[in-house]
């Protein structure tokens, strides 16, 4: 089984993010591998270990930080890495990314594409599903468990509205995985050292056999016009002291002040 895992460099969401003049202030930000993509990498590596799968990752993006997340994927156990680095793609939307990923898929031959459920910077959760549509492949999103039946079939569990849906998937297929599927391993020192020596196959759009125009870059379906501060809640009243006394006071406030009881 040949697996393609997609990984994206995203801003570290634990840091303070400031917005000024309609844009995010870059200063002080750090970038990491999208958390759900770590789950996707872990799925791929487990399939390598348990089912002799061959693993490749792809990341669209540039810069030091992007190289770092690819190396992290190697250190976790992924064998091959492809990086699509083209300055034209800096502010692309999900459709453009999906179109680029389609080209990457078509250049190789893969049985399974694994993406994260969503990217922490966009919070969209659509790129993997659009990719499947583009490729005409079956797709299951929000996957929480995988069970390999044979070379061509997987049973996947997806968290749906009414409970857990068990879906029999015929490969090739695309799945998007959520964080409850596994606990991504931490790369070990030795893995990180070896990862440094591994070669990343870096391509721009021309090398991929396409162009900015062809992947829809010049005609984006949507564009972020501006970033705005989110409405942050402010801390209200906090009570410390005798539990009976403060709890009684808070219940009275919920009833009389907030009027929600």
């Amino acid at each position, binding site marked *: 089984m040949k697996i393609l895992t997609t990984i994206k460099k995203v*801003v570290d969401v*634990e840091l303070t*993010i400031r*917005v000024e003049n309609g844009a*995010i202030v870059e200063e002080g930000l750090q970038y990491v591998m999208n958390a*759900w993509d770590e789950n996707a990498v872990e799925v791929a590596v487990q399939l390598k270990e348990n089912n002799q799968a061959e693993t490749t990752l792809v990341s669209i993006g540039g810069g030091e930080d992007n190289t770092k997340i690819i190396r992290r994927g190697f250190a976790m156990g992924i064998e091959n890495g492809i990086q699509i680095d083209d300055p034209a793609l800096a502010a692309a939307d999900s*459709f453009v990314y999906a179109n680029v990923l389609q080209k990457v898929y078509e250049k190789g031959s893969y049985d399974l594409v694994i993406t994260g459920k969503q990217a*922490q*910077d966009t*919070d969209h*959760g*659509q790129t993997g*599903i*659009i990719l499947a*549509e583009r490729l005409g492949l*079956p*797709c*299951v999103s*929000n996957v*929480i468990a995988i069970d390999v039946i044979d070379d061509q079939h997987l*049973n996947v569990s997806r*968290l*749906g*509205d*009414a*409970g*857990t*849906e*068990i*879906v*029999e*998937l*015929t490969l090739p*297929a695309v799945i998007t995985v*959520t964080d*409850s599927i596994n606990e991504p391993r931490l790369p070990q020192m030795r893995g990180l050292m070896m990862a440094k020596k591994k070669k990343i196959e870096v391509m721009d759009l021309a090398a991929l056999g396409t162009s900015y125009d062809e992947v829809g870059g010049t005609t984006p*379906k*949507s*564009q*972020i*016009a*501006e970033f705005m501060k*989110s409405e942050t*809640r402010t*801390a*209200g*009243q*906090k*009570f*410390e002291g005798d*539990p*009976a006394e403060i*709890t*009684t006071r*808070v*219940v009275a406030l*919920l*009833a009389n002040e*907030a009027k*929600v009881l």
Partner: protein
Amino acid sequence: MANVLVVADIKQGVLKGSTAELLSKAKALGAETAVVAIGSGLESLIADLVNAGSDTQYIADDSKLELFSAGPYASCIVDAANQFGADLVWFGFSESGKAAAPRVAAQLDAACATEITDVMLDGDQIEIVRPAIANKVMQRVKINTKHLVAVVRAGAFEAAEAITGTENVVQLSAPEPDLKAVIKELLSDASGEIDLADADVVVSVGRGAKDQAGVDLVKELASDLKAGFGSSRAMVDGGFMAHNKQVGQTGKIVAPTLYMAIGISGAIQHLAGMSGSQVILAVNKDPEAPIFNVADYGIVGDLFEVVPILREEIKKLRN
């Protein structure tokens, strides 16, 4: 004038409130409205669909559609969108909506946006507003296509009272099942419980409750209040709570009148799922817990002491 097609949110045979909320918003924007309902045994829901404010009802009612499958579900929506001439296709927040929306958008060659909190129409120009980066920022997004498929964030729009629609039912033919992604089984989570998405009050339990006894204690508080009973991820990972009870970025997004966070630290992924609540009460023994930064009322204390008193005081109040 814009045409808005709303995808009916039906869970366990019941039409959820988000459908009326989305239709109200569409009417407030001056749009023509239609709804598409997909499932099996929908006949009895038609009156509800009309009462929710739709002027045309596209119905795909077939036993083949009983269990959710993203492919056929998306095909029905695309069919309805084409027949109606929809400019905008809106889903209320649901896992099925999140799975189907990008497919529908790809098939209609439309733009796609999830978690939207507002829509602005100015002639042919569509713009939306949505949170991103775990709610840390908001984005205003310009849509360059004529069509937009969007999943609306829970609680973003309000249902206006006294809007009803007109009955005009159009039957859709059921698409063939997806043979490459065959739904074999649905392991349904405890039904009969209050759906988190609809609940007026939500009580959620976190790792502070430690074990099953702690979870049961907090659950009693939820039952007293007839509240939805939710959880942080820690208690789902710990096996104490079902996956579909998780509130947060990867779980349910809720916006109740009152949210009670009991023994929850307030990680941003949790906050992303509940910070739209009207009033937040937090109980945590650590006065520095980040949950207190968003709570309107905070009780610093041991939940094992505080929850029984809370129950007692609420009972007194109710009598």
